């Protein structure tokens, strides 16, 4: 079946907070799609709406030709949802949790083993341990098994890698890639900008609005200005000095360098260099660099906030 998701004009408000503002988004069947944005952006609200756990104020969404409001029971059968907060039964064992979810969807673990096999073998040695006593990485794997046990066509993962260390994060993305090869549509939310590059397309989302939807490559290709990485003996002082520089458009700490854009289209780097030298900076290095998703997100979000 077509397990694409089409979202039209979707809005949700909690009291005075407009959590989602007229979201329009199409996700293709079988796509690995990323929702990239900080806490409070509206990612969880969007997932809860798609998972039929909340009703929209305005607009709607469909998975294939199934409506999330009118046909919510069908949606629940074709959807696997892994909430951001660990929501399995802590006082049931690993195997009991999995059996429970299989039973709820009126199926059996053995009938679906092909779907979860690669992940299951990693937690099977702990199958009699209480879920509450698992490590973070193991809990995450169990939650993924439980979300997959009824062979969903669409998988919604709400911040599966938040607070997880770099090693477990990279393992988790490996699992998603192999799930994608089974044809499941996967939507994954993350606050880690670097994970955007692991998705086929991403939506950058902030304050309930989508800033941009595109492939990671096209998003960085559309970066409007020339970006420079600047390094000095004292990067923090360099940051403070560049903020005072009359031609600075933006300057941010970025790992071992500062990322700088100039307000002018054409200018001489020597000018920036001599300004910083006059401020006493030593061992300056300035080079043109390619922007990453995080640069794009910051440029788009400061623009949206009206700083530019």
């Amino acid at each position: 079946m077509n397990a694409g998701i089409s979202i039209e004009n979707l809005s949700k408000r909690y009291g005075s907070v407009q959590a989602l503002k007229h979201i329009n988004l199409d996700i293709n069947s079988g796509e690995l799609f990323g929702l990239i944005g900080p806490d409070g952006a509206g990612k969880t609200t969007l997932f809860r709406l798609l998972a039929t756990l909340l009703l929209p104020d305005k607009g709607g969404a469909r998975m294939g030709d199934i409506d999330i409001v009118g046909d919510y029971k069908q949606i629940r059968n074709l959807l696997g949802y892994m909430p951001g907060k660990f929501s399995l039964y802590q006082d049931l064992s690993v195997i009991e949790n999995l059996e429970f979810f299989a039973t709820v969807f009126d199926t059996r673990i053995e009938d679906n083993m092909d779907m979860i096999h690669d992940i299951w073998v990693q937690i099977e040695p702990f199958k009699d341990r209480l879920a509450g006593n698992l490590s973070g990485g193991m809990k995450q794997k169990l939650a993924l098994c439980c979300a997959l046990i009824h062979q969903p066509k669409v998988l919604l993962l709400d911040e599966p890698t938040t607070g997880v260390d770099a090693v477990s994060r990279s393992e988790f993305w490996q699992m998603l890639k192999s799930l994608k090869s089974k044809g499941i549509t996967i939507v994954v939310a993350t606050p880690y900008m670097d994970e955007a590059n692991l998705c086929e397309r991403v939506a950058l989302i902030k304050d309930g609005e989508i800033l941009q939807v595109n492939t990671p490559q096209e998003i960085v290709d559309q970066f409007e200005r020339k970006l420079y990485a600047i390094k000095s003996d004292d990067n923090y002082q360099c940051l403070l000095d560049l903020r005072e520089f009359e031609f600075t458009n933006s300057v941010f700490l970025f790992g071992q360098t500062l990322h700088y854009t100039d307000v002018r289209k054409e200018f001489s780097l020597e000018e920036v260099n001599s300004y910083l030298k006059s401020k006493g900076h030593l061992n300056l290095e300035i080079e043109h660099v390619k922007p990453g998703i995080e640069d794009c997100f910051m440029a788009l979000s400061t623009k949206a906030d009206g700083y530019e």
Partner: protein
Amino acid sequence: MNKDVKVIKVKNLCKKFGDFTANNNLSFEVSKGEIFGFLGANGAGKTTAIKILCGLSYPTSGEISVAGFDVYKQREQLKRNIGYMSQKFSLYEDLTVFENIRFYGGIYGLSKEVIHRKADDLLKKLDLQHARNKRISSLPLGWKQKLAFSVAIFHNPEIVFLDEPTGGVDPVTRRQFWDLIYEAARGGITIFVTTHYMDEAEYCDRVSIMVDGKIEALDTPAKLKEDFNAGDMDQVFLALARTATNVE
């Protein structure tokens, strides 16, 4: 940073829980005003070590002093001279901004006058005067985190411990948060910070990386990248953490 003054001294720190060794012979020193990154995979033993350094848990063995106080015998003085903030616990959600400041100031024994004066300065600096009487629960996460950090150093401690302070925060706010960290470090406060963001490891003066309860690497980010022949700290971290056998 003043390299002649060591505000954290750890020598042969061990902590065992039954047969399990959570901290295996840790030794390191941190200078006054240094930004020290304390990295490690989940389960490497970071939280155990931080609890000991904050005077909340006794080590099994080792000589450890923090802000000049012994972690066995002078825990109360130690606690008065440090600040602590984590992503999980920082401010009381159902108190207002000012009530939180007053509460923390009071706990650390500041007078009413000092609390009022410093609170005014703080709210002005953070551009939060309009939010003075708003409940914490109504503030965006980014504001909360900046306020939580400022409250953690409100009593001007020798050292502040930051346990994953920026998780989930948007990239612009995350950098504003680091501005506050740099500023505090310049003012002489020592920063002891854990993070899962490897770009933030680059902002530290020195970084230690724990694997299975041991410190496997400790140096400046530049030196670590050189030693591991790595382009960035992410590669250094992955090279070390992949050798881990402890899975929490």
